[in-house]
């Protein structure tokens, strides 16, 4: 056995030694140990260096609230987790744990020089010191500060583990598996409720696990726990150990993080590392317990100084003596229990210093009877010992002679803080309880109730009673309101619990509530190095400084000093800080208020939140029916929304520029084939379809003949361009509407909105058909020649099927909707066939086109060709502030229509201004220069900064057809500037000269549309 292990007792398995390493040194613990208890059993107290001053730090607590003992656990292969609390890490054979924030080693840490320099690092130090020169912040100061101040490092390798997620529903969710939670779960299950009970620890029982003398219903506590869990099992309750209720969200949606393999030496290959439970509970019982408060006395952060109840836990639960000679400093009764238990285990209690003038009660009497010296009205004014405390300096409250007491352990107890985190997250209102000196749950906002320690009830019998009542009430409430239904009122106030008087610790009423202000901290004399927030290295002096500098709101004090902002979110520090601020300002604690508790209760992994949504499953990928052909034929793809689109088809040895130039030439001179399947498609059907189109699009549709198409422009109600696309009228009551690739869902939603809520009298049916049709665009002067042999039942001769028409027939033997449309300026067809035939028809067209030099082309070529023609792309030439007139599309507006969505807005005075940004062409003076898309356009690049921006470049390409670069731009009053020279500044300080032109660069008369 290790040197500080007791000969017997505790819940560890003494027959199972476990070997592990800490900072490379080998140690042995026992099965059931945490890393913290195993280190203490080996006499290791120095476990970390503090955040800012690199002060040696030891283990303070025994649970989730631990502020100091943060370690990195490295399982190899990228399985490296920083900032784990040693108090919650279960040891397993071969565990490799590493301390953090020290270099070169924990014992000799060069960063400790910060501690000597500490007078230079007060609160707000960063804001005050690193102001000049400005450029030094990002490059010099911040990286240096980040290196020397900090926590563990994030792992660099990808996380190789798997994480599971599931949804669960229950009548009653009980969070916290101590005596209160077990009692609540049992009562709820016995009342017939479906119950989930979870606890963050590997073993259920909470405080009972370190209270071996406790009895419940006349049974030993351990027996009661086992029987209760068995009873829960018989009633099919879901009982989840190692599961933290970390977040309480709206409508009783609670996040639980279950750790499945972190405690195993050799996890099964098929086991996920963690599991996210997304629980929707009809009722929630919070039984999260309470957290002991440290005291803010000078040098209260030395290794060997810990919370009294933590020492009791190490002794009773883990069979570890955390020291040999202890001094106890307290302002309440519970520390006496720890002193008594330690004394019984043979640990000398040198003294109990109690800040109360006359500590009353049976526990105090028991301590005296056990021969322990109790000093009333005594406080602690300092400690000594660098890597481990070796003495305490005691003095009477209010001043007097000092007493140096040698010790290697100091137990502190500043009272208890109910763990109201989840209650607060549920948006419940906290209430300050004067007698307890703590915030407790007040008004509920959701269907939950708190019981036991997290409600400020600490006596075991009372906790069990409250737990039972809460469980019973929760089950009944769940029955009354069978669903979390919104329409069912869920606002019944939490039922009153029995024992209306809060049972608190005996003697708590006389608790010296002013310890933080007066006892340990003599008034007006601010102690040095009295830490309030251990994890963020915030001292009483820092808080005092913040107040002196004028900070009054607790939220501001918190942010200025960073108290409560570390990974522990101030579990041990918030109340101490709050009381100090309140006392200093002469206000009551509730008048100062408390900061908001936010999710998560303890840190959760990114992995468990991401679940399976990573790598290939990060988001869905949409592929067209022709995708596989493009992939086989060497296409380079680009992401457009969720779609994979063929970007260009390079031949051997071609770069992108060469490939695009070749594809462009093929379309302009012969024929090209393009996969346009991603176009959004909506079938608008019904007797009122034309009227509906009239109201949703700017154009007039009534007179459009079946078999004809029209370019449709859709506006938002505010008059701005929202979407566009070709619309074909197939029949008087049927339109084939196309939308932009990215706009399809938005357009359908917009149409449904108006149809359902503004024009419900119209008889129209809307159906998304985007994925039902494969769309094959054949463009170029030879397009008709390419498809003529494949078309069946349609006369595609020039006059029989003019530009902007649509016909039904067959293409390559497949039923097709054949459009004669062009997005290139050339003669063009778009063949719509059922998606399942897409690839076959594509291949047939491609084969038929071989005689005409057909080339597959991608989205880049499509963009160049349409830009040469000045055709806009919504979202590129428009940005949500652009109206039709800005783009020269006034002609698309049905002037005689009394109304359409957006029409009234176009009449607003702002829409008539002459200096609106208008679409123009921009030709760089140097034809080889392709202007930067998104770059600003200015009159004079040498004007003083900030100079006036006239607009920006929206599209810019090298045009093979024109043998030079071209660009489109939105320029203020642009149409009146034609012929003017403007400038496009680049990021490197140079500026390109360019001439404003008409936006149509190629074939402005449109002669080529007929081939």
């Amino acid at each position: 056995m290790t040197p500080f292990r007791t000969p017997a007792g505790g819940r560890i398995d003494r027959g199972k030694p476990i070997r592990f390493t800490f900072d490379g040194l080998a140690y042995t613990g026992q099965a059931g140990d945490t890393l913290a208890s195993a280190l203490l059993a080996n006499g290791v107290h120095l476990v970390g260096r503090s955040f800012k001053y690199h002060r040696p730090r030891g283990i303070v607590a025994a649970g989730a609230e631990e502020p100091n003992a943060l370690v990195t656990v490295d399982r190899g292969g990228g399985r490296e987790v920083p900032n784990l609390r040693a108090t919650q890490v279960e040891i397993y054979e071969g565990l490799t744990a590493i301390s953090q924030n020290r270099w070169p080693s924990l014992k000799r840490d060069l960063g400790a020089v910060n501690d000597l320099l500490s007078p230079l690092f007060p609160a707000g130090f960063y804001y005050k010191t690193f102001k000049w020169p400005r450029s030094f912040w990002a490059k010099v100061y911040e990286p240096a500060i980040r290196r020397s101040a900090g926590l563990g490092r994030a792992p660099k390798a990808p996380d190789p583990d798997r994480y599971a997620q599931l949804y669960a529903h229950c009548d009653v969710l009980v969070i916290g598996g101590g005596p209160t939670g077990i009692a609540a779960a049992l009562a709820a299950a016995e009342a017939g409720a479906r119950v989930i009970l979870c606890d963050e620890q590997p073993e259920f029982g909470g405080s009972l696990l370190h209270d071996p003398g406790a009895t419940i219903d006349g049974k030993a506590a351990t027996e009661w726990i086992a029987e209760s869990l068995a009873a829960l099992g018989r009633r099919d309750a879901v009982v989840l150990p190692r599961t933290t209720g970390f977040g309480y969200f709206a409508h009783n949606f609670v996040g639980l993080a279950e750790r499945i393999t972190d405690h195993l030496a050799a996890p099964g290959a098929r086991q996920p590392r963690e599991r996210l439970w997304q629980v929707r509970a009809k009722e929630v019982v919070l039984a999260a317990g309470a957290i002991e408060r440290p005291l803010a006395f000078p040098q209260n952060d030395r290794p060997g100084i810990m919370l009294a109840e933590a020492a009791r836990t190490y002794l009773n639960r883990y069979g570890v003596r955390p020291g040999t000679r202890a001094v106890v400093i307290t302002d309440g009764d519970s520390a006496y229990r720890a002193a008594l238990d330690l004394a019984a285990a043979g640990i000398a209690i040198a003294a109990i210093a109690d800040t109360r003038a006359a500590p009353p009660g049976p526990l105090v009497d028991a301590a005296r009877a056990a021969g322990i010296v109790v000093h009333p009205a005594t406080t602690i004014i300092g400690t000594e010992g660098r890597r481990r405390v070796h003495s305490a300096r005691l003095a009477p409250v209010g001043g007097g002679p000092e007493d140096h007491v040698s010790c290697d352990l100091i137990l502190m107890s500043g009272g208890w803080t109910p763990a109201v985190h989840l209650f607060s997250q549920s948006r419940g209102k906290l209430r300050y309880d004067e007698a307890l000196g703590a915030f407790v749950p007040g008004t509920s906002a959701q269907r939950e109730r708190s019981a036991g320690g997290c409600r400020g009830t600490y006596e075991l019998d009372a906790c069990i009673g409250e737990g039972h009542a809460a469980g019973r009430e929760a089950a009944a409430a769940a029955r009354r309101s069978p669903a979390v239904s919104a329409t069912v009122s869920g606002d019944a106030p939490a039922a009153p619990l029995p024992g209306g008087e809060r049972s608190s610790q005996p003697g708590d009423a006389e608790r010296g509530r002013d310890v933080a202000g007066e006892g340990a901290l003599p008034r007006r004399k601010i102690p040095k190095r009295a830490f309030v927030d251990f994890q963020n290295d915030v001292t009483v002096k820092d808080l005092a400084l913040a107040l002196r500098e004028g900070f009054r709101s607790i939220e501001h004090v918190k942010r200025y000093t960073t108290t409560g902002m570390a990974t522990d979110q101030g579990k041990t520090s918030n109340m101490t800080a709050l009381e100090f601020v309140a006392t200093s300002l002469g206000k009551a604690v509730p008048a100062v208020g408390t900061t908001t508790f936010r999710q998560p209760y303890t840190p959760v992994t990114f992995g468990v939140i991401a679940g399976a949504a990573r790598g290939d499953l990060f988001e869905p990928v949409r592929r067209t029916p022709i995708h596989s052909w493009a992939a086989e034929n060497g296409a380079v793809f680009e992401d457009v929304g969720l779609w994979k689109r063929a970007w260009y088809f390079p031949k051997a040895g071609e770069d992108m520029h060469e490939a695009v130039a070749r594809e462009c030439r093929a379309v302009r001179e012969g024929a090209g084939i393009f996969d346009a399947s991603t176009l959004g498609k909506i079938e608008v059907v019904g007797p009122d379809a034309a009227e509906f189109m009239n109201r949703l699009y700017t154009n007039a549709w009534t007179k459009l003949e079946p078999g004809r198409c029209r370019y449709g422009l859709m506006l938002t109600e505010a008059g701005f361009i929202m979407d566009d696309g070709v619309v074909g009228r197939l029949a008087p009551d049927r339109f084939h509407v196309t939308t932009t690739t990215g706009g399809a869902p938005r357009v359908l939603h917009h149409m449904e909105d108006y149809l359902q809520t503004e024009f419900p009298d119209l008889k129209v049916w809307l159906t998304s058909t985007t994925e039902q049709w494969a769309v094959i665009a054949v463009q170029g002067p030879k397009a008709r020649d390419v498809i003529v042999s494949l078309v069946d039942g349609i006369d595609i001769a020039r006059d029989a099927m003019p530009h902007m028409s649509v016909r039904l027939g067959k293409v390559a033997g497949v039923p097709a909707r054949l459009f004669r449309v062009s997005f290139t300026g050339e003669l063009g067809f778009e063949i719509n066939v059922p998606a399942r035939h897409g690839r076959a028809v594509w291949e047939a067209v491609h084969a038929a086109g071989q005689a005409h030099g057909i080339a597959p082309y991608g989205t880049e070529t499509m963009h160049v060709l349409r830009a040469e023609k000045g055709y806009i792309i919504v979202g590129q030439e428009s940005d949500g502030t652009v109206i039709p007139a800005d783009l020269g599309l006034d002609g698309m507006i049905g002037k005689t229509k009394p109304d359409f969505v957006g029409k009234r807005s176009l009449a607003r005075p702002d829409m008539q201004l002459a200096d609106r940004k208008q679409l123009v062409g921009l030709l760089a003076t140097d034809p080889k220069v392709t202007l930067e898309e998104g770059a600003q356009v200015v009159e004079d690049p040498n004007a003083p900064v900030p100079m006036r921006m006239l607009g920006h470049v929206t599209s810019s390409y090298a045009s093979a057809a024109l043998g030079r670069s071209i660009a489109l731009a939105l320029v203020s009053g642009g149409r009146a500037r034609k012929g003017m020279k403007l400038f496009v500044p680049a990021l490197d300080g140079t500026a390109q000269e360019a001439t404003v032109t008409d936006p149509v660069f190629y074939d402005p008369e449109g002669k080529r549309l007929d081939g």
Partner: protein
Amino acid sequence: MLIVPCPHCGDRPEIEFRYAGPAHIERAQRPAELSDEDWASYLYLRDNPKGLHFERWRHIHGCGRFFNAARDTVSDRFVASYKAGQKRPEIPR
């Protein structure tokens, strides 16, 4: 994540829905007759109440229908939901 009451399908999780802004803002029968000020107010001016809020939702991954709901913006509790076109219910404050 909220539980949203669809008047057609019942209680469903929020991920099935799309929020659609405040309810009972009627588009004028003849927008052309509105002054610029009234039209701008229709387009842009919205209340942001603390407490009861009448709002539109669409069960976009369910029945696809728009409906109205009354939700308390402080507690997120839905106190009513009803079909589009129905009158705003009287809700005691």
